[in-house]
């Protein structure tokens, strides 16, 4: 009995499921407390998940496709956070890397050569590159100058936001909130998806995300680069002593981490919009990616599942609002989930307490 409990409390997957359930539980209680019907919240979530509307029995596959499309940036930003976390860095800069990716993708889309395929490939490549540059800066600051990555990433997020505005306001046809429409060659739309999902925004970005997940898994589990990074994350001094170049390891991993977030920015820019946006605020995918990675325990599979959950929550927002449930409940649930993850160390304390009592019982001290 106690060994099963012990094994469960040490299983990361189990803790993640528990944490998500607790987040939903507290969220449900909160909705009930303010006098709304929590059932409506779950109806909205179910519709976003399956496309089936319980109230009128109609089916619309479009909702499923939108959930998938929303998940793409969440998963990629989760990978970005997860990659850095494996080397022991806390990358709060996913947002800035995402914004830089978005900005460069928009720039190439409006100014690049309008050649079929080449155009969007260039735009996405630019997004990935600038994302890795933005992340690499953090790595160098950390490795060479010992600047805390928590502070430097937060600063770089805001630099990215305002830099993005400066750049985008210079693009063709820029007004205070949008630029001219992208040429057709820059878009990553998928007409087949559009036909079978009643014109949802689901696009080729989902394939790029799939490739990114596989690359993440491969680097982490199968290469010596990933091994060196994980070793650095576990114990920097031990890694240094065993000949792993720590500075290089940190810089490269931050650059790769940024590349994932930059890709997310590129995909959102070219997949979900037909014009460039002049950002007034942050999209928050980068911040939510922190939660996604934490829920997914920074593994490829876990992060993908967690990203799907967050995509589901985001897509359900509008449906909730239509059912008189304030959509901000999804933010509250996400926040609660992260706080409960922080509290998971309590499980360890509890286990220590149990072990101690067990020991006392065995040696006969009461």
């Amino acid at each position, binding site marked *: 009995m106690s060994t099963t409990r012990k094994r469960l409390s040490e299983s990361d997957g189990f803790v993640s499921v528990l944490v998500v359930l607790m987040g939903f539980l507290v969220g449900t209680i*909160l909705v009930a407390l*303010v006098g709304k019907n929590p059932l409506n919240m779950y109806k909205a979530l179910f519709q976003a998940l399956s496309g089936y509307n319980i109230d009128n029995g109609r089916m619309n596959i479009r909702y499923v496709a939108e959930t998938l499309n929303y998940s793409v940036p969440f998963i990629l930003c989760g990978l970005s956070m997860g990659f850095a976390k494996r080397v022991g860095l*806390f990358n*709060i800069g996913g947002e800035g890397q995402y914004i830089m990716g978005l900005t460069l993708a928009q720039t190439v889309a409006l100014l690049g050569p309008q050649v079929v395929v080449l155009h969007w490939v260039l735009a996405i490549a630019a997004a990935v590159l600038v994302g890795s540059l933005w992340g690499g800066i953090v790595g160098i*600051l950390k490795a060479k*100058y*010992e*600047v*805390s990555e*928590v*502070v*430097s990433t*937060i*600063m*770089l997020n*805001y*630099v990215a936001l*305002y*830099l993005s*505005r*400066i750049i985008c*306001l210079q693009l063709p046809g820029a007004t205070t909130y949008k630029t001219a429409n992208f040429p057709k060659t820059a878009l990553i739309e998928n007409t087949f998806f559009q036909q079978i999902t009643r014109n949802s925004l689901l696009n080729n970005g989902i394939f790029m995300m799939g490739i990114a997940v596989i690359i993440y898994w491969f680097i982490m589990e199968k290469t010596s680069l990933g091994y060196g990074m994980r070793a650095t994350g576990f114990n920097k001094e031990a890694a240094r002593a065993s000949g792993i170049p720590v500075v290089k390891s940190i810089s490269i991993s931050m650059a790769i981490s940024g590349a994932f977030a930059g890709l997310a920015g590129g995909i959102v820019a070219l997949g979900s919009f037909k014009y460039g946006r002049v950002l007034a*605020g942050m999209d928050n995918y980068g*911040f*939510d990616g*922190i*939660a996604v990675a*934490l829920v997914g325990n920074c593994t490829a599979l876990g992060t993908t599942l967690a990203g799907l959950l967050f995509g589901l929550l985001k897509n359900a927002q509008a449906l909730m609002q239509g059912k008189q449930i*304030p959509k*901000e*409940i*999804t*933010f*509250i*649930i*996400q*926040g*609660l*989930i*992260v*706080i*409960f*993850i*922080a*509290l*998971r*160390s*309590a499980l*360890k*304390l509890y286990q220590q307490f149990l072990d101690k009592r067990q020991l006392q019982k065995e040696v006969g001290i009461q």
Partner: protein
Amino acid sequence: MTMILGMLPSILMIVAPILITAIGGMICEKSGVVNIALEGLMAIGACTAAAAHVLMEGSGMNHSLSLFLALAMGLAAGGLFSLIHAVAAINLNADQTISGTGINLLANGVTIFASQILFSADRTREFRMGMQTDALGIYPTAYIALVVVILSWFILYKLPFGMHLRACGEHPGAAESVGINVKRMRYWAVVASGVLAGLAGGCVVLTQTIQYTSNTINGRGFIALAAVSFGRWSPLGVTGAALLFGTAQAFSIIANNIPALRVLPTEVFNILPYVVTLAALVLFSGKNYAPRSAGLPYEKGAS
């Protein structure tokens, strides 16, 4: 010179809340707990103060009394919310960055959720009148900030309580061995940072705007966090850092009135505080001024 004097009131208006929050963050880190939830705690304070003020104003309460009570409620709300961080970081040895991030996300949802319930909109209703400036054109928040700085310096460096608190951040084991209750000291510090961030949130909303929206705080808590490291964890340094960042921010508003600066996009001035911080962190790297045990959980009897 006259131009800079003319700008002073708006600079002080912007600096005050950043400075108040940064002092709270500094106290918290001095005790050994890193609090990146300052942004969220400011939001909680701002939303509470704005909602309280608009409701009390509507009930015909005396204007100054309403402002005072609104600030007090924002302060209390920030303090209450920071207890989450305190329990997580101090009792449960949680990762302080994760729990701080959680509170920031949660605050984002809770404030707007509350506005939806209270005012059926994604923001609080506009109040008619916020704080008023005095004869010099300066808001009372500037004086509040001054008092906070002096008090924090006096408590941290002139009272035994402050020395004990700092010891907990440098070497908690040694502090415990001479009879200081490390956990209790850290509780005081975290709640102080929550109270000050809540107060600062109220100051922002009652001087710079007429309602709380999801954009009201807009990174001020993060700037305060940077001011703590840029100011090298000392009251004077943090004050200087907050003044520098606040001035840079004020410039983005004022630059429009200065012909020589109008050619630059206002975003250039928005970027300034962040770039300055980064540059400063690189220039002053090497020597570490941070409290030695900041960010590490303290387990009694361990090590």
